């Protein structure tokens, strides 16, 4: 069953199109991540679904019910705020119970539900603390508990992991995904971190300038990006601007009539090897010659700046091997790890 359906959402701030004809759908239990750079409209999309943005056009349906003109408190969607927005004057228990209290549930029912959700998120022992006495990770769980305890039709997560430090973030990604899967709740997840989206989402929507450029499963987004923006935004890449003749010489089919081409190389998948090494390649793989012009030691790997001979541009590739400055090298980019756009 479709839980959320938006049709042609429009929102303008003066000349800026924050949402430009945005249509998405989320199925029961599905986690849709919306990614894009800041200013792409992803937060506006989330806030319009929550009811905090007055739209200039379009319709929002939740379980088939038109909620476009309903105020936020009548939509039965729960939002998780980037800064958690836990009420500092209430304890953890009171924060989580508030939504149920407002819905006039009985005291016993509230206690039962809050205790269940706190234990589910493993924060039962914090029930009587104030938010200021909690760590970032604990506050995050309380905010999540407050959102899911009201059993919303749809969960909206606004950059849920961005306030945590990098190490915890990695661990929480797995936890968050398994929690959401266990709850089987439809989720709209907004993040600027493409890696986070790839690892956590069932499907990803890539946004830029208020438009959705592509929607698909993570693998599809990563392997079959529909345009230069999506290809470049997802993954760690180098974009090389090249003339069609130069590209043709590499053995890649070039679209007709293009004056200049953009070659996106997934730098995280490119392999660097010595000039004279023998390399197995299929006809669709890309083998480039270059010279090391810069190096940066990163610990397990070293980051090399390679000047490409054929394309007259520099790219950055990490490698475990040791190369010297000015050493000639070869760069192997497998089929599916590079994309060409006119």
């Amino acid at each position, binding site marked *: 069953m479709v839980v959320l359906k938006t049709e042609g959402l429009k929102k303008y701030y003066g000349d800026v199109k924050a949402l430009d004809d945005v249509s998405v759908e989320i199925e029961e239990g599905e986690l849709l991540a919306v990614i894009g750079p800041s200013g792409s409209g992803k937060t506006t999309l989330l806030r319009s679904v929550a009811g905090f943005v007055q739209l200039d056009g379009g319709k929002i349906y939740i379980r088939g019910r038109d909620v476009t003109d309903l105020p936020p408190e009548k939509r039965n969607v729960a939002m998780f705020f980037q800064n958690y927005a836990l009420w500092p004057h209430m304890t953890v228990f009171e924060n989580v119970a508030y939504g149920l209290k*407002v819905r006039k549930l009985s005291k016993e029912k509230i206690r039962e539900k809050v205790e269940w959700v706190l234990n589910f998120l493993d924060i039962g022992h914090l029930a009587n603390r104030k938010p200021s006495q909690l760590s970032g990770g604990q506050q995050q769980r309380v905010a999540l508990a407050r959102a899911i305890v009201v059993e919303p039709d749809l969960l909206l997560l606004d950059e849920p992991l961005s306030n945590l430090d990098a190490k915890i973030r990695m661990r929480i990604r797995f936890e968050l995904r398994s929690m959401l899967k266990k709850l089987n709740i439809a989720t709209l997840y907004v993040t600027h971190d493409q890696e986070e989206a790839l690892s956590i989402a069932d499907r990803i929507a890539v946004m830029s300038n208020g438009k959705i450029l592509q929607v698909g499963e993570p693998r599809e987004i990563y392997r079959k990006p529909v345009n230069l923006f999506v290809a470049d935004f997802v993954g760690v890449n180098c974009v090389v601007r090249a003339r069609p003749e130069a590209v043709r010489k590499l053995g890649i089919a070039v679209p007709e009539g293009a004056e200049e081409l953009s070659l996106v190389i997934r730098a995280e998948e490119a392999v660097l090897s010595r000039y004279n090494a023998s390399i197995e390649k299929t006809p669709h793989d890309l083998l480039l010659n270059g010279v090391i012009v810069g190096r940066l030691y990163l610990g397990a790997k070293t980051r090399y700046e390679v000047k490409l001979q054929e394309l007259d541009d520099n790219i950055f590739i990490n490698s475990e091997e040791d190369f010297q400055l000015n050493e000639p090298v070869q760069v192997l980019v497998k089929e599916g790890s590079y994309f060409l756009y006119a």
Partner: protein
Amino acid sequence: MKRRRELFVGFLLILPALIVLGALYVYPLILSVYTSFTVGEKYGLANYAKAFDIYWRDIVYSVLISFVTTVVTLFASVVVSGYLRFRNWKFLELMYKLPLFIPFLIVGHAMRVFLAPHGTLNNLLTRILRIEELPGLSRSWIGLVWAFVWIMTPYATLIVLGAFRSLDSAYIEAAQNVGASKWKIIIDVLIPMCRPSIMVAFILTFVRTISSLTIPIMVGPASPNMITVNMMFRVNYFNDWGTANALGVISYLIVMVFAIYYLKFMAAERGGIKA
């Protein structure tokens, strides 16, 4: 040596402020306390005995009037601020500030006309209710509170609305999101989170009301009276500075109760974050 020089320069820099503070604030304060304890050549509590003897009713009355005014004012300013926090209504934004620019004397006169036995309010009410006559409010405690609330609400609203507006919207949206109505949000989120500012508004309103003279003279009943009016009578008609100052000191003490309560509250609020 250098350190001493710096201290001296620093002292010189704040000296003008200290002189102004001393001459216009500390000296008169000390003088009024001193005068309150002197009768002719003698020192003692005679002025206080007299003040309590003649005016104890008025002291209680002043505290009650100020308290009722403050409560009603705060209620009105929370309602106006709550409304303006959620909705941008330019007209109300302008209207609530209007009384700030009107002198008390004018307000007093306007209220007398408005609240008089055959004034604007009663004319309207008698027509709507189709009755012959209504008692005027202009010389009663209700009229007095009415006028005070009219004057004090904009000041209190400035403080309360400022606090409401500076609160991160996420706190409000989080409550809306889990289903709270705007009223619930005002009561459960805005008021508790803006308590320090509301306390400031409370104390300022109380202090300004209990120290006001113009409005009680123009709108208040002939008896009982506010302390300020009694002080004026003592000085103007009896040249009795001693009792007037004793009444003054009594009103400082009343205000001080609130000030101490406020300071304690602020200290608790700051330290209250800890376990």
